[in-house]
């Protein structure tokens, strides 16, 4: 086929620029919003997803990890006595106050763990070691929050919940969904920082024994340990994510923005492709008069839309990569996994081809007799 679609598209540079701007705007908006949604989703369940635990034991009716309620740590022994339990460790995750050198205070989430256990250890350390937490009053936090918490380097001493805390290391990319950074420390320190009694914990993490059945162990725990809920890690992760993303409305707002991006892109592309089609309507009429079936004309318009989609996608992704890269050092990460990049291609194609259908409707109604008018 002679390059009619390409030529029509490139003939009017201004219109092409408007079309591509619309597609690029749409692609970037959708990537940013979906990426934010993914980033938020990941951040809400970060702690749970990186726990390496099979099961989470909480007090009754705890809807998400930040809403944990303290219970007696004597339940740890009851848990360990249940058949199928390989390992069980106490965990504290609770909000408390961090006092900066300037006297200002910030809310943080203390994560108290057993340094010698394999479950719920800080990850992605860029300075210090997890074992450094064994030193007195030691804490590890993420480098993203240095400025917020007034930390400049390892060794600095602060106050958490009225107790002395010394920074021994930094992680990279452990974001909290809330504005309160995670601060990792030993279980014992966490009890002090969070003002819990010595015999209290907030969660018990369980690894099942090799060969044990997860569901059976869960049922056994529910039967043998009173007044607790037992969730699989995936289940508790979903619950926490659902709470933050949908119960609070935060996720819905981001998703609505993503849908708006799609709608805006669709409208801009539909409008410009339609205008291009109207500009060339006499040519399409000539094509039909020459004997071209509607399908031939559709092919030209679809090809035009597909070329615009590919160009817009490539440009949009270039901009998106910069935006995503730039967000990594900010408070809200925009994630773009490969599946999303691939999915965006098909979404862009769908958007442009869908927008072209508006033009096809116009072309279908062309009266080829128009070619004889003037």
């Amino acid at each position, binding site marked *: 086929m*002679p390059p009619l679609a390409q030529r029509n598209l490139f003939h009017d540079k201004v219109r092409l620029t408007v079309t591509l701007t619309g597609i690029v705007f749409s692609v970037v908006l959708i990537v940013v919003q979906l990426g934010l949604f993914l980033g938020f989703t990941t951040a809400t369940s970060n702690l749970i997803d990186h726990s390496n635990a099979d099961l989470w034991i909480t007090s009754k009716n705890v809807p998400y990890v930040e809403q944990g309620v303290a219970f007696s740590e004597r339940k740890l022994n009851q848990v360990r006595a249940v058949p199928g339990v390989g390992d069980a460790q106490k965990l504290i995750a609770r909000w408390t106050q961090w006092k900066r050198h300037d006297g200002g205070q910030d809310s943080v989430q203390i994560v108290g763990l057993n340094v010698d256990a394999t479950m719920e250890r800080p990850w992605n350390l860029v300075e210090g070691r997890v074992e450094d937490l064994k030193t007195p009053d030691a804490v590890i936090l993420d480098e993203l929050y240095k400025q917020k918490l007034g930390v400049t380097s390892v060794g600095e001493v602060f106050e958490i919940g009225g107790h002395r805390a010394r920074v021994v290391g930094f992680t990279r990319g452990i974001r909290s969904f809330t504005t309160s950074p995670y601060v990792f420390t030993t279980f014992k320190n966490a009890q002090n920082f969070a003002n819990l009694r010595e015999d209290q914990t907030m969660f018990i993490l369980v690894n099942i024994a090799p060969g044990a059945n997860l569901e059976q162990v869960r049922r056994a725990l529910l039967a043998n340990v009173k007044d607790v809920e037992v969730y699989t890690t995936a289940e508790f992760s979903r619950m926490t994510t659902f709470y933050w993303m949908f119960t609070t409305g935060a996720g819905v707002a981001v998703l609505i923005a993503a849908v708006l991006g799609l709608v805006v892109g669709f409208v801009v592309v539909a409008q410009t492709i339609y205008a291009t089609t109207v500009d060339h309507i006499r*040519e399409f009429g000539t094509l039909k*008069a*020459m004997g071209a079936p509607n399908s031939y004309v559709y092919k030209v318009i679809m090809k035009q839309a597909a070329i615009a989609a590919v160009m817009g996608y490539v440009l949009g992704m270039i901009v998106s990569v910069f935006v995503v890269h730039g967000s990594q050092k900010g408070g809200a990460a925009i994630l773009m996994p490969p599946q999303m990049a691939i999915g965006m291609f098909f979404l862009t194609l769908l958007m442009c081809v869908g927008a072209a259908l508006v033009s096809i409707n116009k072309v279908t109604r062309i009266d*080829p007799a128009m*070619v004889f008018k003037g």
Partner: protein
Amino acid sequence: MQSAITVRELTKKYEEGTAGTLALRGINLDVHPGELLMLMGPSGSGKTTLLSIMGCILTATSGSVRVSGREVVGLSEKQLPALRLEHIGFVFQGFNLFPTLTAGENVELMLDLKGVSAAKARRRSQELLEQVGLAEKYSSFPSDLSGGQKQRVAIARALAGDPSIILADEPTAALDSHTGRNVMEMMSDLAHKRNRAVVIVTHDSRVLNFADRIVRIEDGAIAVGEMEAVHPGMLLQNTPLGVEGQV
């Protein structure tokens, strides 16, 4: 000799609300291969409507139209494009070239519609442009061509489908007399040397001497008794079906 186009008792009514306009009323006409027929008449007389129906672009309200022996009245709008593609080539007043395609590509587009491969289409397109004297303009865009050159490209495009019928709507209206004469010589050659049936709608009295036969349309009907023999030897006839002239 079998007619390339046979029109019998053709009527065309344009519906407009509850009323309607009768654009053609009882037209009878035969167009033969090797003949150059001109349709003349005042604006709004129905000549372009007749050309559109003969070209399978418009559908008739009643009557019969046979194109290359095939009845086209009653065919669906999906069947008509294939018929146009196979039998009819169009030449338009405004040339109707694709401005974003080169002269060669304009011709190749027609060949692509016919399913000719790209390589063959390119060769054939070069041959056709050579036949209309524009071999060197293969890569020129329409905006770089004169009016006469554009019309010659349009003729090459019409010929690309190897049609037995050429229908032209005011092909010289936008051209000066010299260029118009060149184009008419080309149309005349198509009829007389290549045995195509050529029908031309025109107002241009300068080109009448190229016609084998002139049919005058007035108020949607053939005006009886107003035919002119242009070529020496042309015979005017009044037949029961209307008026025909033969060389």
